[in-house]
């Protein structure tokens, strides 16, 4: 009996080995190596690397560029994920209603999300163009704006324009998850609620929300992780400008490692970034647990 169990366990390990080898090779090893690099003075083509302990981390935390970009990244993450959530839920609810052309509208919804980020960013850069951009044309012709203006060249609004581009591309993801989870809310619950005299808002709050909460929170966590490491949309639209006002954390990491060739401190920046991201996720998970406990 005991030997049969051992054999089965051995077989399980044997079957798992290839996957474990791949995971160690492509995830664990590079991660360990990055952590090791972050404690050294490694640079591309520079002098031999030396162990510098926590110096890179102190340098990052005291670097104003790092602090400012952390602020920009948190702002970007918070605003764009919030907007994506509100818009995604609203559109999800809308597309759940039966109407003519519903299938077509649902297919259309996927379009922005399926677009490569670079293409999306290039497109919005053209739309936001100060001289020949569609946005200026639209706003001026409808009388909402007096004269053509600069969007991406204005440090007070450039970040918001990048957020618009990101929201347009990513809200469909939330909407699709919303749409899918709405299908799984049992119809008889609505029926029962209606019989009990619940109005539209009450039905939404007490039937729909609990039903879609779990899948939606997954969507929020995924979007947060993604938004926090934002890079490409900014690289294409503003390259961190004007006057560094859209410089995100991942941009600073990239610059440190590949423009300034300091791989060691670049690794430390990256680890810090991953740490902050993990912290955000932990916060979400804790909040969700608390919520589940209370309902």
């Amino acid at each position, binding site marked *: 009996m005991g030997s049969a169990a051992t054999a089965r366990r051995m077989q399980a390990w044997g079957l798992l080995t290839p996957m474990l080898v791949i995971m160690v090779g492509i995830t664990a090893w590079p991660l360990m190596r990055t952590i090791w690099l972050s404690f050294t003075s490694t640079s*591309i083509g520079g002098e031999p690397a030396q162990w510098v302990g926590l110096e890179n981390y102190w340098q990052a935390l005291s670097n104003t560029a790092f602090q400012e970009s952390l602020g920009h990244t948190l702002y970007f993450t918070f605003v764009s994920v919030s907007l994506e959530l509100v818009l995604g839920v609203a559109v999800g609810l809308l597309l759940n209603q039966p109407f003519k052309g519903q299938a077509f509208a649902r297919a259309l919804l996927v379009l922005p999300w399926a677009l490569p980020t670079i293409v999306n960013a290039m497109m919005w850069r053209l739309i936001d163009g100060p001289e*020949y951009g569609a946005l200026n044309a639209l706003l001026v012709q409808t009388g909402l704006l007096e004269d053509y203006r*600069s969007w*991406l*060249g*204005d440090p007070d609004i450039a970040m918001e324009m990048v957020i618009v581009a990101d929201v347009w591309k990513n809200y469909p993801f939330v909407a699709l998850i919303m749409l899918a989870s709405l299908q799984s809310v049992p119809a008889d619950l609505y029926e029962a609620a209606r019989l009990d005299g619940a109005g539209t808002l009450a039905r939404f709050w007490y039937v729909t929300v609990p039903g879609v909460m779990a899948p939606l929170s997954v969507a929020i966590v995924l979007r947060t992780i993604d938004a926090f490491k934002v890079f490409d949309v900014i690289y294409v639209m503003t*390259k961190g400008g*004007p*006057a560094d006002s859209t410089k995100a954390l991942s941009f600073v990491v990239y610059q440190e490692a590949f423009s*300034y060739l300091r791989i060691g401190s670049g690794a430390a920046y990256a680890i810090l970034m991953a740490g902050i991201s993990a912290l955000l996720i932990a916060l979400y998970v804790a909040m969700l647990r608390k919520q589940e406990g209370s309902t």
Partner: protein
Amino acid sequence: MQQRRAILVAALVAGSLLSAAAHAEKTLSALFMAQAAYSEDDVRAMTSDFEKANPGVKVKLEFVPYDALHDKIVAAHGAGSGGYDVVLFDVVWPAEFASKGFLQDVTKRIAVGDIPKVFPGAWTTVSYKDKFYGMPWILDTKFLFYNTEMLKKAGISAPPKTWGELEKQAKIIKDKGIVKYPVVWSWAQKEAMICDYTTLSVSYGGKFFTDGKPSFHLGGSLEAVQYMKASIDAGLSNPNSREYEEEDVRKVFSNGDAAFALNWGYMYNMAKDPKESKVVGKVGIVSAPGVDGKTVASAVNGSMGLGITAKSANPEEAWKFIAHMSAPATQEKYAKLSLPIWKASFSKPAVKQGQEDYVNAAAKSLEVMAARPETPVYQELSSILQKNLHSVLLGKAKPDAAMKLASDAAAKLK
């Protein structure tokens, strides 16, 4: 059944052909830029000429925007062998690339007799500490372009020779309502802005370093920034310049929305191309202006060179390719978007024809061509300058204070 056999035979033939080719050929991998100067089509045509003349060698071309060029070269070096054999590099990088060992020293490959035949400004593009790290290939600087029709309408007989004159002429054009913003520049937070800044700074007699210390906040270097800011405040320079790079400047000028533009030489023939431009027949070009009592003209060295990477396994073939790309015959054949590095080429009809103004302006600019700050940490220095300059142009900081910050931050670079 027969169909299946036919496919099988075809596959076998194709396979054996491919393997035969692999034995006979060497493939070079080369990194170029898709922005200003030679177009992608030109580079492909030059390369295919090379492949025809050298049957054993194939060249795999890759094009990236200027902004990605430096980091691509660096990352490929970090990745070890199997990267690029030939790379295009900017005039501001040899100090860094040579001191870090990214490029091969090619001093011995360059014929001593060729040295006096090429413009000195081109050689500074590829040299560091008396050694050559490549062959100059693009010889370029920023020129002052003007719309001849707009100047005529404003009653202006000759393009400006000084920045002061440019300001006056722009004011006349603006006041007469000929165009809303007469001057357009590439002042996005990118390298292009540093090129415009350098042009202005040297014309004001500015020095980037005084006694070895950064001095962006002193003398001509500061006056340049004040000029830039004042020109935006007066509505003479297009405020959108602050988010423009070279291609945006070209579009604005070619669309007839500017009387003056500062840009690289490639814009000359593109602005004269009816497919690309609405100002055909109205394009004027001169050297960038100087400053009364200080300079007669100004120019920034925006040249680029072709080098062999340190880890290339085919340095001989790579050099052959570079020699072909920079040969007088090749450069004279494709002289519309980028002028040759060779002095003698400037008087050849094939080069001059149809672009006498461009060639004459270039000859004058080459004499005053100045370098951007020289340092092995150029990328970081440039980022510091870009941020502080941009803050001034956007009205977020005063010129003297911001440039003092830039000097202080630059002094801390190692």
